[in-house]
Each structure stands twice: as structure tokens, then as C-alpha cells.
């Protein structure tokens, strides 16, 4: 018998189930209703009407990887803000100083990333 906090999460579970139900119906219905006339040409990957050239899943610029890495690091930083934000009202200066120091250290990294052109994207 779930109680208290756990009860709050039950509706989320039901919402997921309802969503899966609706989505499942939508995925299955055309299998029953729609025509099926596959052909070689139709199954080819779309490439503006041309015969596809080379594999589709090719390497892509390392830039995207760098963006994902920077994202993780700043995301970890932001997650600390949530519990802290609830305490600024009561801890005042202490909260400000501690977080100020935290942000200042990260600012060094941000400026470094900027100077090294991590945020530049060629046109």
C-alpha cells in the first residue's frame, strides 16, 4: 500500500499507460486499415528522388560531441541551484557567498571555452 509521497507518483504511471495505449492504437490501426503494396523503389531511403549514395549513418563533426560535453558540465552545475534556491531566503549571505564562489570558478571555464572557440560554429 503506497502512502504519502509515493501516492503522488501513481497518476504519472497511469498517464504513461494511457499514453502508451493511445500510441499503441495509433500504431496498430493502419496495419489493419491501410493498404500494403511494398516495392523496391518505395522502400529505398528518400534522397530527393536520387538513388541513395553511400551509408546514411556516417560520422558527424566532433563539434556536436563537444557541445554535449559542455552541456553535461553546466547541467551538473544547474542541478545544484535547485536545493540552493530554496535556502537563499533563510541563509542569506552564506548562501550567496558559497554559490558566488562556485559560479566564479565555473565562469573561468566558461570564459576559457569561449576564448578557445568552443561556441563558434562555422557558417
Amino acid at each position, binding site marked *: *500500500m*503506497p502512502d*504519502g*509521497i*509515493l501516492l503522488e*507518483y501513481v497518476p504519472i504511471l497511469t498517464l504513461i499507460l494511457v499514453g502508451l495505449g493511445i500510441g499503441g492504437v495509433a500504431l496498430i490501426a493502419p496495419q489493419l486499415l491501410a493498404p500494403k503494396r511494398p516495392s523496391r523503389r518505395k522502400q529505398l531511403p528518400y534522397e530527393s528522388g536520387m538513388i541513395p549514395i553511400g*551509408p546514411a*549513418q*556516417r*560520422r*558527424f563533426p*566532433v*563539434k*556536436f*560531441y*563537444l557541445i*554535449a*560535453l*559542455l*552541456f*553535461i*558540465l553546466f*547541467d*551538473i*552545475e544547474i*542541478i*545544484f541551484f*535547485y*536545493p*540552493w*534556491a*530554496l*535556502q537563499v531566503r533563510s*541563509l542569506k549571505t*552564506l*548562501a550567496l557567498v*558559497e*554559490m558566488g*564562489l*562556485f*559560479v566564479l*570558478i*565555473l565562469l*573561468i*571555464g566558461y570564459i*576559457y*571555452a569561449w576564448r*578557445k*572557440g*568552443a561556441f563558434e560554429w562555422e557558417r
Partner: protein
Amino acid sequence: MTLIQAVFVLFAILTLGAGLFTVLSRHLFHAVLYLILSLVGVAGLFVLLEAEFLAGVQVLIYIGAISILIIFAVMLTRGMARNPGPPLNNQSLAAAVIAGLFFVLLAPVIAGFPWPQATQGVPADAIEALGRSLVDPNQFALPFELASVMILAALIGAIFIAREKR
């Protein structure tokens, strides 16, 4: 078995099963997706433990950020996603035997260990308490500040390695 225990078993199976598929999957991209599924299971376990903040962090950092990075890394590696080697190598049998022996060694210790039991639920203001302890010099202020130094080091290292040479 109570309802909560049933849900726990469900999430535990999800976590471990997806973890198993992560290491056994031949296809690297699928392995990453199984890993994500496993992490979802862990998030569910955190919710069951009423550790809402940890569940949020689990989803936000591990599923929403680190897994994206792993997906990018797989996509970045030429050929890796298409033709991975077999998941098991010729030492798999020996590894399984050693792991099994280790478990036999460990099992009595696990069974006999006086595990601490939670006597009370999670306090309602757990997150507020977390916020306080992060900035309190007598608690976790120093580790908190050091975390930022660590993130800084990771950031500089990442840029240094990943930057395209001009």
C-alpha cells in the same frame, strides 16, 4: 508481497535485465539504449525510496545528459555502430567462473552483514536540508566548492582534447 515490493521487483528486473542486455548486445547503439533503460530503472528505485531529488538528478544528469553524450560518441565513431565485434571474447568462460567464485565468497558476508534499517521515512524538507548542508561550512561546503573545481578541470580537458586543430 505488498504492492510496493511488487513494484520494486519490477524496477529491479528492469535495471538488471537492461544492464545485462547492455553488455550482451552486439549492436553498440542498442547497447546504449539498454543502458538508458537500466538508468530509468534506477530512477524508479529512487522514487520508491522517496528520494525525489536523487530521482530527478538521475533522470536529468544520467538519462538527459550523459546518455546523450554516449549516443553522440557512438555516432561519432566511424564503423563502431555498424560492425561491432562480438560482445563476448574467448576469456568469457574464465571470467564467468571467477565471478561465480567471487560471489560464493561474498554471499555469506552479504547474508551475515548487519544492514542498517531506516527507522523513519524521508523528512518532508529533505531538499531544503540538502540545500542547507551544501552551503554550511561545517557540512558539505568544501566538497561543494571542490565539485566546481572538478567540473572546471573536466571542462578544460574536454575542450583541449576535442578541439579541432586549426
